């Protein structure tokens, strides 16, 4: 096994022949007068995400019951939405294998990509986002950022041990180059625009 010093030493030897180049200035490429929610919605559609503006969790729950009437186990990582499997009682991630619908509140949306940002804070158990057969996600419409540049400029974005930009459901095109949704992760993702209640965020 190499030591860190030996390892760095061979890199320094390789670098002896290189001339250092400058770090470029990276603009954020923001566009003036852009309707963030409209762009986000356009790209959600491209990612096969169905979305709804709702004014209450009950409204969202009703929509999910209509969309997925056969789902038996609902596990939610947000207190706003009560499921029938308690995520806090989960001892091992694999215990989430029976979840039909996983629910959580995303922390951010990226308009350019139709992506949402989740971390271990929003998922509680990371596997919820991937073992669940289907996902229902809440997002505050005020939490949409324009593009990847503005997203990565969010202070503390990478503070969490785990964070993921999720663009719709899981997908593959590995068989005959045909796009199939529901590869190993969730088969569908439904998004609900619902404001965060002030008392829950402590704002």
């Amino acid at each position, binding site marked *: *096994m*190499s*030591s*860190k010093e*030996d*390892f*760095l030493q*061979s*890199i320094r*030897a*390789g*670098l002896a*022949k*290189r001339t*250092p*180049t*400058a*770090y470029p200035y*990276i*603009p954020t*490429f923001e566009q003036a007068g852009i309707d963030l929610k409209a762009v986000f919605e356009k790209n959600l559609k491209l*990612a096969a995400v169905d979305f709804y503006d709702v004014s209450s969790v009950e409204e969202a729950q009703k929509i999910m019951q209509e969309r997925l009437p056969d789902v038996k186990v609902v596990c939610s990582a947000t207190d706003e939405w009560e499921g029938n499997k308690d995520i806090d009682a989960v001892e091992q991630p*694999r215990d989430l294998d029976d979840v039909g619908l996983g629910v959580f509140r995303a922390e951010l949306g990226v308009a*350019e*990509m139709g*992506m949402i940002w989740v971390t*271990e804070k929003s998922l509680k*158990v*990371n*596997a919820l*986002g*991937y073992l669940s057969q289907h996902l229902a996600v809440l997002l505050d419409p005020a939490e949409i950022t324009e*593009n*990847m*540049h503005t997203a*990565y*400029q969010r202070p503390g974005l*990478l503070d*969490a041990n*785990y*964070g*993921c*930009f*999720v*663009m719709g459901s*899981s*997908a*593959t*095109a*590995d*068989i*005959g*180059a*045909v796009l*199939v949704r*529901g*590869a*190993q*992760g*969730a088969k569908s993702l439904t998004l609900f625009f619902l404001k965060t209640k002030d008392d829950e965020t402590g704002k």
Partner: protein
Amino acid sequence: MKKVNVEKNAAEFIYQDDIHVTEHDKNLWNARQKRDTAAAQIPEWEELRNLASAIKEHTLTHLDQYLEQFVTNAEKRGIKVHFANDAAEHNAIAYEILSSHRVKNIIKSKSMLQEECGMTPFLEEKGIGVLETDLGERIQQLSEQIPSHIVMPAIHQTKEDIAKLFAEKIGTDPNNTDPASLNTAMRNNARPKFLLADAGMTGGNFAIAETGTFVVCTNEGNADLTASLPPLHIASIGIEKILPKAEDLGVFIRILSRSALGTPATQYTSHFTGPREGAEMHIILTDNGRSKRLAMDEFWKSLKCIRCGACMNTCPVYRRSSGLAYGATYSGPIGIIIDPTFDAKKYSELPFHSSLCGSCSEVCPVHINIAEQIMDWRKVMMKNKEVDFSRRMAFKAVGVMLGHPKLFRAVEKVAYNAINILPEAITENKTLDPWAAHRKLPDVKKETFREWYIKNRKNNEQ
């Protein structure tokens, strides 16, 4: 190591039937076209390519500093970082971590570095079960073949091939070739194995010095399952994956999947900055020839590669011959310039497996001068006498002839006449020249260009 016979391998793919080569070509060109459409929708696309290239060059020319910073920050967050000089060390470290945790079975997502190190056969030999969880990689694992494409590992197989394979290996109906049902069958087959695995292994697309974060980009969600289920996560990361800051990701995430498949991004862009509660996280930072490549004046820029596969999708030679022809972990144009750095003898034929059309350089999102480097590798192979004697002599003869106008004119006339007289059995002989198959020499005019030019110039002057 035995020289890879690219021509023979390519012929095996091309001549198996008239379906595979057509499908392969169509699917890859389709990816290239989708890339063009995606790129055209971003007004700053070319600026992003310039930025990506500049960030990579800056990082590579300060690699020791950024690597040290990455290690410090990752360790601060409780990640154990290991250093592997070569493939053997990488595999030994992986095995040591796994065996000290009494791991019997691992699940892994796609990692070109682990592929490069030959990790799976190594671990299997030691008695550890390895399950590839990316669908394409799983297909290749079951087929006992290396991946033929860095993004679409099984793109050289048709859905009929895969239906037959799954019927044999996991008991599906051999007549059901529907990609969705085949996918479901594999999803159901893999799920229990995900749940029971003792450890998960991933690669890393990017590693951020400023935060100690590594990023994994996937479409299937298999990397996130791999990382979120077992109590142990090991990531293999090549030293060239380092980026200075989180904001650099803004540039790279915008260009990676658009270049690869024409989608805005991969379905999942996963960031790992520390182990989850109650779990362990290890990184094996691996050199395996990269620091030596950094010292190579003509070839160091190949380290900028972000493994998008755009150069493969656009390459007319790759699309026709398939990735298996290259007999290497990395195929296509990028493979031609990377593989010889591992073994210049074994991969000495690769640089000649190119038309030098330059399309690879045109689509590369980080501006690697791929076509130029292919040319430079040809020079190296000629100098090292790694090229067949007959071909070397032919090149030499052409060199002499082109350097002597009178000689050229004499040879030209003889050749013109010869082509018109000789039978096709000689001029288009597949044995003498494997590239002659499926190709026809054009009809040759009686008059050489020079004769035509002298005559017509006189006409013009009058």
